[in-house]
């Protein structure tokens, strides 16, 4: 998708969004609530018609070629609403058949692994169980692309790990996955690349390593002589001293320079910690918050 705009009245849900998912990868799609993740997926499903911009999925146009494309994709919404008087098993079969076919062996295996009772009427399912129905329906047919909108929001940790192994297997079979999620550990485990969206724009994309390089590393260093002029170095932030050690954060690009400077004072010990995904995420999420909190301050 490139430069896609979608407005609802005066809100710009997508404001020039660029998103690229490569064939065969598991792509993480992160963003705060209301940032436009679900709208993106609904545009890709051809349910919403973008105002402008270009989108292409599996070589087709999501709006015009919807039906042909839909044979090759499966979708799991974040908020799963099912037909209350149909059983879970019926819904799984129906959705898979509407898509073009179900693999009964795979279906039964998934039902087993996710510990779903397919005989229950869906009105009696909990949120997590409704989610399982949608997951089994999506995973039980051999599609090329899985569009998953916060698929594990209602699952317990055990089921989440089952879900993760299912996705890794799907990826190993060469399927492409777009995974919108809030659960950073999940994204970290599953995703090859990720895109962070905010206010309907992609603010960052790349592999996890690339994103880390773009952000700061935390350094804690103890030296023989006090470090001088540290605050005058480029890319060094948030300097503080405790227990004789100096701690600071340094931008990925300036890491080399900062380390050269520090070593000239005789390093006794040095601990460096790469940014966690949380930090990455939070930096893009709330710059408003960040300016209020000196400990995370950015110049």
């Amino acid at each position: 998708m490139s430069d896609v705009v979608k407005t609802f009245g005066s809100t710009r849900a997508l404001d020039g969004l660029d998103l690229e998912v490569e064939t065969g990868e598991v792509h993480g799609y992160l963003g705060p609530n209301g940032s436009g993740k679900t709208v993106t997926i609904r545009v890709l499903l051809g349910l919403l018609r973008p105002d402008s911009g270009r989108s292409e999925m599996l070589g087709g146009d999501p709006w015009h070629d919807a039906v042909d494309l839909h044979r090759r994709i499966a979708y799991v919404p974040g908020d799963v609403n099912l037909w209350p008087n149909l059983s879970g098993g019926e819904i799984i079969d129906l959705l898979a058949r509407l898509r073009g076919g179900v693999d009964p062996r795979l279906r039964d295996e998934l039902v087993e692994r996710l510990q779903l009772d397919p005989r229950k009427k869906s009105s009696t399912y909990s949120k997590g169980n409704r989610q399982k129905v949608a997951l089994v329906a999506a995973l039980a047919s051999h599609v090329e692309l899985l569009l998953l909108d916060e698929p594990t929001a209602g699952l317990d940790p055990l089921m989440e790990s089952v879900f993760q192994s299912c996705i890794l297997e799907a990826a190993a079979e060469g399927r492409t996955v777009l995974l919108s999620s809030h659960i950073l550990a999940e994204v970290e485990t599953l995703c090859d690349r990720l895109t962070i969206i905010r206010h309907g724009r992609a603010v960052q994309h790349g592999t996890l390593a690339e994103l880390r390089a773009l952000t700061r590393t935390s350094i804690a260093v103890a030296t023989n002589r006090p470090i001088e002029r540290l605050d005058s170095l480029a890319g060094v932030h948030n300097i503080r001293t405790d227990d004789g050690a100096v701690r600071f954060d340094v931008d990925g690009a300036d890491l080399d320079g900062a380390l050269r400077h520090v070593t000239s004072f005789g390093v006794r010990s040095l601990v460096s910690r790469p940014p966690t995904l949380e930090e990455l995420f939070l930096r893009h999420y709330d710059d408003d918050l960040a300016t209020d909190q000196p400990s995370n301050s950015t110049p």
Partner: protein
Amino acid sequence: MTATAERLPVAHRRSPRRPAQDRLVGVTQLVRLVLRRDRTRLAIWVGAIVGIVVASEASITGLYDTQAELDQYGALVRDNAALIVQAGPGYGLDDPTTGAVLMNELSIWTIITVAVMSIFMTVRHTRGDEETERAELVRAAPIGRHARLAATLLGVFVANAVIAIGVVLSLLAYDLPTMGSLAFGSALLLAGVLYAGVAAVSAQVASSARSARALAGAVLAASFVVRAVGDVRGGTLSWLSPLGWAQGIRAYADERWWVHALTITATVLLVVGAVTLEARRDFGAGLVPQRPGRASAAPSLRTPLALAVRLQRGALIGWIVGVALISFFYGIVADQAESIIEDNPDMADFFAQLGQASITDAFLATSVLMLALTASGFTIASMLRLRTEEAAQRADFVLATATTRARWVWSHALVAAAGTVILMVVVGASLGAGLALMTGDLGHVPRLVAASAVMVPAMLVLASATLAICGLAPRWSITAWGMLAVAVVIGLLATLLKLPHWLVMVSPFTHVPPIPAAPFELLPLLLLGATAALITAIGLGAYERRDIS
């Protein structure tokens, strides 16, 4: 520390049953919430009901302004079984006053409308809310177990009271006697609250709002039939029907206030029943337990059409049973219409003016129209599935598979259309069967099936208009019911309300030849069919272009 230790035993001595007011905590705020959420709907209901009452008063006082005219009306209507079925026992028509005539023309419809409003409102705020997470939010707040039910019933009471006050004031404004006006107003209020009680019980028994409404609606329909049979056969059976009680107050005809005691007692019993049931069941569950379903889908469940059929099958069966019973009953009564009228020279003259049609045929034509209007309830509800499916985001699932929008829309449209055809065939067949049972002449069956079938094009116009509303302005889909309301008012009350010609022509039913009272005409049916096709195309076009939300 000592203080806590001393207090502990007291805390343990808490009585096993909490005081009653605990179970009603928060009821005041909840009543306000109920009225706040329904303010637009209620304004429409109140406006429509009071408006129709006022228009009828204007019409009746204008039509019958001398005693001679009133006497003539009484003589025509008094012993007419067909009219008694539709209107009620006709209290006071032996010595008719304006009030008595007005009651005969108006009271049953007003009471039924108020009952329908109360049923919808009650189910919406009880079982309807439980289907969403809204009610759980409320229950998680410091709110008593029965507070939601109590608040709903109080809200319905307020709504009915506003209507009753409006009706009483309008009656007094037309110089009708105070006692009679108060009697009718209070009967309306009490009947509304009684059916809210019926709906409250249904909401506990059924496990979905849809089936709760169906259950309460069935009770209302049964009340009508019991009352109609009772009124035709001298009145004893009518004492088993709440609608019979509401009319039994005899407004403007020597009021019998004690009849209210029956309504109040029954209401109290219903409310106690609802509260008891609510205390015994789990939140979100009904008393009728869910049976386990199939582990895998039947081989036939593989198309959007199969899904639409599956989703609407239960509702359609319910409608078939309902209209079959009512139609059969009308068929039985139709035969009596003639015999009673033949004994009445005034009546014979009156019907002679209507044209060549026999009295039975005139009655049957009116019955077919009424039943078609009733069955249109299915047509519209079925078509509105499109909107429900979309709003609940279940349409997303289907449209995310290899299903075109057109195919999805058509699947529901076909079920609505086919269901409508089935219902009207059932109406005709049951009407004919009822009549055949009395006359021994099976020839009535095909004649009445034809009479009912010709209503289908008009009903399809309503269906297509519903589809178009859902396609063009999904947020306004509820207005589809407004269309039906307008068609009902035009179909049943046009003469009484002296509606202008152009307005009467708006209803598709106006254009249907009233078989068997009039000969068959093909052209209007073709035109109605073409209209339906055109509107359907517009609706489909809108669906192809817009966002699914």
